[in-house]
């Protein structure tokens, strides 16, 4: 009988890296990511532990990752895909994993990624009246932002 790892290896258009026995990376094109997530859910990966983003600014890409877990096989599968920084658009995964809905709201706000199909993306979530570039992007300078928006407070006894 075919094991789950063999089934993962047969996913269409996926590059598989087995980091260790229970950590498998599955890299796919962004057009295939929803199909891959759906296939993995059917295989028994019912839990989306975390969905988030790595800003690969030197490559001009955002890396979007989904950490999945199977209660049955006790394996974590990490699905990764990449989108252009200039036009970062992904499709929502909340129809497959309900918890993706809020993770997508967060990455939409923190990285400025447009999530098609998630009606709450674009609405204020954690930030309030934010007018700068999305703060988790690598080109957002938090020190500069602080110095421009907040008054520096000297500690007692410190030289001016």
């Amino acid at each position: 009988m075919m094991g789950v790892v063999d089934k993962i290896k047969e996913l269409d258009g996926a590059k598989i890296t087995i980091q260790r026995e229970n950590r498998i990376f599955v890299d796919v094109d962004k057009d295939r990511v929803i199909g891959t997530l759906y296939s993995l859910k059917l295989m028994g990966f019912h839990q989306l532990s975390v969905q988030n983003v790595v800003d690969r600014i030197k490559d001009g890409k955002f890396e979007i990752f989904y950490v999945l877990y199977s209660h049955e096989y006790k394996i974590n599968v990490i699905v990764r895909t990449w989108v252009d920084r200039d036009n970062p658009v992904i499709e929502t995964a909340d129809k497959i994993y309900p918890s993706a809905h809020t993770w997508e709201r967060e990455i939409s706000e923190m990285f400025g990624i447009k999530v098609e199909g998630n009606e709450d993306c674009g609405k204020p979530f954690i930030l309030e009246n934010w007018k700068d570039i999305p703060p988790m992007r690598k080109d957002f300078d938090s020190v500069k932002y602080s110095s421009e928006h907040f008054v520096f407070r000297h500690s007692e006894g410190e030289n001016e």
Partner: protein
Amino acid sequence: MNKSYELFIGPNHPGIPGNFSLKIELEGDTVVSAKGDPGYLHRAFEKAMEGRYYIQNLALIPRICVPEPDINEAAYAMAVEDLMGVEIPERAKYIRTIVLELARVANYTMWLGGLAGTLGLYTLAQWSIGDRDYALDLFSDICGARVYHMYIWPGGVRRDLTPGWEDSVLSYIRYLKNRLIDYDNIFLKNVMFKYRTKGIAVVTKEQAIEWGATGPILKAAGVAQDVRKDDPYAAYEYLDFEIPTLTDGDSWSRAMIRRWELENSLNMIEQAIKKMPKKGPVCAKMPNPLKGYVPEGETYAKVESARGEHGFYMVSDGTGKPYRVAVRGASHTHMFTIAEKVLVGQRLADVSHTLVSLDICPPEIDR
């Protein structure tokens, strides 16, 4: 006439578990919709970590969960060790286990007080939070800090246990095991507790799996999943323990699971102290923290917190500072995917204890 009205619970409200807000819409005193409103506690931990050396982040990450900070230290250290290919010494594995379980005990005692408080029984809240303080004293003995310990770090633990510390821990366990009988008698066996929590905020097994629940919520719904068992870290693989499960998935079942887990943790600490090598290094040989570099790569390290799966997704670009660290706290999913749904249909008086029953920890959302 408008039948429904909106009510804000938090960020300053005795029934909200931390700096977090909940907007609920009510008809009479029945909740018709609930929306979590985060952001009051955001300190940009993930962004701040990118600008600091790996070792400097240890002062930052415990603050991601106030009642149980050690899970952050452990998951962070495990991620760094994974990227560096470091195996920690045996004694360090046991010390980590003892510290993590003690932190779980401190969390559950505080949680019990919170639950009792939201149901109007403040006596237990006074007792259990007082008993948590004795656990904090034990942390202070080994690292000098009561709340944020910065004790577990990459390679093992920061320093060895102080002489006689194990005896103090065993003495505390004996005390707390007796104390649990008092907790049961005044609260968990109390008919009013049962009346207020039975059948409230039910999460079925199918819902728990579909919504991505972990920890006590999943166990109370009948799924025996626990990172300590399924993907053992520290010294858990050497310990004998059961994963408690119940089937009703209600507020009462979640409380019972935590009560059971609390006793399990005390037994695990006893076992770990007994089995721990009495001598040996407590930290692997690591490079100079300010000059050492972590090899390029990506990994996901996870531990079992008192609320469920707690993980760190770490990306290294081969320099002395992490390129990206994403934190996965169980409360993120438990608040927005579960609480917002199960609160609908509840009475206003049950909102606070439902939030405590789901153990929503706001810093895990505002990271």
